[in-house]
Structures are given as structure tokens and as C-alpha cells.
């Protein structure tokens, strides 16, 4: 599984970080989320799916 965040849509709710801090990071500049590595380790796939369902903006996609 791979994951990406649309930076135009993300508003920094940080629910993704709450779901899976191993995959999602928050910027020191504005608190918006980013992923350092789009490849999701298998043990975090469930947590990343939870993040997708927790993002109020619909900014996260898995592919």
C-alpha cells in the first residue's frame, strides 16, 4: 500500500497523526501533515486506513 496527502486540501486537523504517527508527520511551520515515505509498511496499513476515514477534509488517498 502507498499513501499520499493532497497539500491543497489538507488543513492540519492532525487526525492522521493520531491514527498513525509512524507514517504521518506534522509540519513545524503550519501543522499540516506530510508523509516522508509513501510506502506503508504492512503493519501500519490498518492504521493508515483509519486515518483516511478520520480526515475531515478527505485529503488522504491510498493507492
Amino acid at each position: 500500500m502507498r499513501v499520499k496527502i493532497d497539500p491543497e486540501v489538507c488543513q492540519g486537523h492532525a487526525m492522521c497523526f493520531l491514527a498513525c504517527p509512524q507514517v504521518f508527520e506534522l509540519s513545524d511551520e503550519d501543522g499540516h501533515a506530510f508523509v516522508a515515505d509513501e510506502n506503508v509498511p504492512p503493519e501500519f496499513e490498518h492504521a493508515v486506513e483509519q486515518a483516511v476515514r478520520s480526515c475531515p477534509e478527505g485529503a488522504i488517498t491510498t493507492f
Partner: protein
Amino acid sequence: MAEGDLQPGSKQFPIELDHDTPEHAANWPERWRAIRETTPRAWTESHGGFWVATRLEDLVGIAQRDDVFSTHKELDRVTGETTGGLSIPPVPGIRSIPNESDKPEWNGIRGFINRHFAPRAVELRRQRARNFTAALVDMVIEKGHFDIVDDLTNPLPALVTMDLFGFPLEEWRAFADPFHTMVYTPASSPEFAATIKGLDHFHARVDEEVAKRRLEPKDDLLTIFATGLIDAEPLGYETIHDLAFNILAGGVDTTTALTSNTLLYLSRHPDQRQELINRPDVMPLAREEFIRYFSPIHGLARNAMSDVEVNGWKIDKGDRVLLAYSAANRDPDAFEDPEEVKLDRFPNKHVGFGAGMHRCIGSFLARMMWECMVTEVLARMPDYRVEEDKIESYHTVAKVNGWIHIPAIFTPGKKVGATIS
């Protein structure tokens, strides 16, 4: 007349709703449920007429269309008259920025302050906030009774916000009290003008301290206001007032409301309180659940700048829309058993902090302050019990769903020797 116009909730067939009344404050969850089920996109003639978005999907859809929906407020600084803006009913005499600004003005202002509210900046403040909390609890811990609002949830966010600005901490009450009263006094009431007047002191102190920072910069927000540049220009006097107003208003009453509601709820649900004490790992999820459930900011407005359709909902140019966060946060299409508090609810795509570009800049700070207060109370007064016959809630929740008084008793404990400095 187009087909569908006679649908209940259309402009020709408006619903009865005034969210700025004691009746609404007493009943809002049932009221929103009824409206969401029958007329989820309803027009009301109250306060000059407005739509109400009660479903999460619609609310987010509108909040994300900042190309069409404006929050910009025009303020006549002489008469105090305003047009546009975020509030229904309108709040005269003041403007908040970045909240009541559109792109591109918003980009400059938000970009200017973002860094000071980002997770890293907030973490650096956590230890001080913990100390303030411990000191506030020290003041009451030997007595065995306190007022959750007066003694804890009102002063702590005020102190942390004062600290962030760089104002002398001992002045917190003179700053926080006018905001507190402004929030729970209905804008249509005769007392409201006096509450706006109460903000004069705040503005005067902002001017004094900004003038001092120009001569002697420090490491605080006031210095940034005094010396910073937005789009290569120093900040004007009005920009500083409107920005400081938004940060103080955002900082002092919302987190107060969230934490007051949380502690009252936990007093009424001892099993869940025990669960939170036993499982501190649930705290972050519980925090988001309380934000969802209580929605401290009840709802805010958007103003359509052109005719638009969102998810098939036609909105005309000039229409106002209330984004009812408190209604969307209990939308059964988005949340299972929405009327229940599940401490470990997840996923939880609540919009308690809003959605779209204006989404709360202070969310990390709010979360941190909530954690400090709830952790401290559960650790040092684990058996606190609210005196239910003495509590008093806000008479209107149109702005903030909060409390005036929540007295409580507990088994006295010992001071830890913390001080506010």
C-alpha cells in the same frame, strides 16, 4: 416558482429557528436532530435570513469552497457598523482576522502567525502550562471545593494565552472577563454594547505593549506584531487589533468551554472517568470525542459571493449559510451512535475545529491545554463531584457552548508548591 420551492426548508417555506435563544441552548441536540432528519439544508428567516448546514458532508463541502464563500467583514470604525463576517447574528464594532478575511489577505496573515501555533511551538509551552495548572489546583486543593470554571478552566487558557502574547500574567482577569461575558451575552440584548466597550481596555493595552516592543523586542507575539512584516509592510494599527482580538477570543473561551463540559460529563459518568484514569492512552481519542460531542464553537457563517451549487444544494449570491459544527458533529451518516460519548471513538472525522482554510489555528494549543487540565484534575482530585444544583450554563450557545459556574467538591489534598510565573 420552480418545482421544489414548496419543500419545507426552502426559502418559500422556511423553518422556525433562532439558535441565539435560551430555548435553543437548552435543547440543541434534539433540535438539530429534528432539523437534520427533515430539512438538512434549511432556510430560516431569523437574523435577516440564512441557510443552516447540518450534515457533515455539506458543511465540509461549503467550508472548502473558499473561492465562493466569504467571511470578509467590512467594519466602519466610526459607527461600528459591519457587513459580512462570521457571526449570525452579526457582532458590531469588531472584526477578527484571519477569521474574517478572504484570500489573498488571509494568506498573508495566517502565514505570518502559523509557526507560533504549530505542534513544535506548542510542545515548547507544555511545561509552563502544566506549571500554571498545578499552581491553580494548589490554590484550591486544601479547601475541598472549587468552581471548575472560575478556578481552573477560565484562568488556565487565559494565562497560557497571555503568556503567548507576552502580557503580564497577573493581568489575565482584566483581559479574559470581557471576552467571557461577550460570548454569553446575546448580541441583541441591551447589555451587549457594554460588553463590547469592555474590550477597550484590551485594545489600549495592546497599543501600549506593542509600542514598548518596538523599543525593546522580546520573544513573544506582541514583538512579532510590533516588528514583523506582512507582504513586506509593517502591520497597521487596525490589523494588530483585529489579529490580537481573534487570537485572544479564540484562546480564552473555547478551550474553557471544552474542558468545563468534559469535567462536568466525567462527574456525571463515574465509570467513564475511571476508564480514563485507568487508560491514559485513551486520552487523545477521548479529547477528540469531547470536541465532537460538545462542539465548543456551535456554528459560524459563510457569505455566498456568487450563485453556487454544493452537492446539489443551490445557494444564491448574497445568501448567508450557518456552518452548524454542532449539528454536523452528530450526523449519523458520519458517526455511529452520534449521541453517545465513546471515549475511544476512532475514526472520528469531527469538524469541531472547523474545516477548510479557516480551520482552527489554535487546535494544537487547545488540545495541549485540555490535556494539562484534565490530567491534573484526574490525578489530584479523582473523586471530584459537581454540585449539580448550583451549576449555570451560558444562556445562549450561538457562539460558544459553555458554562458560567460549575462548583464541585472533592477530598482535600496537598499543595505541590507550584507558582504562576
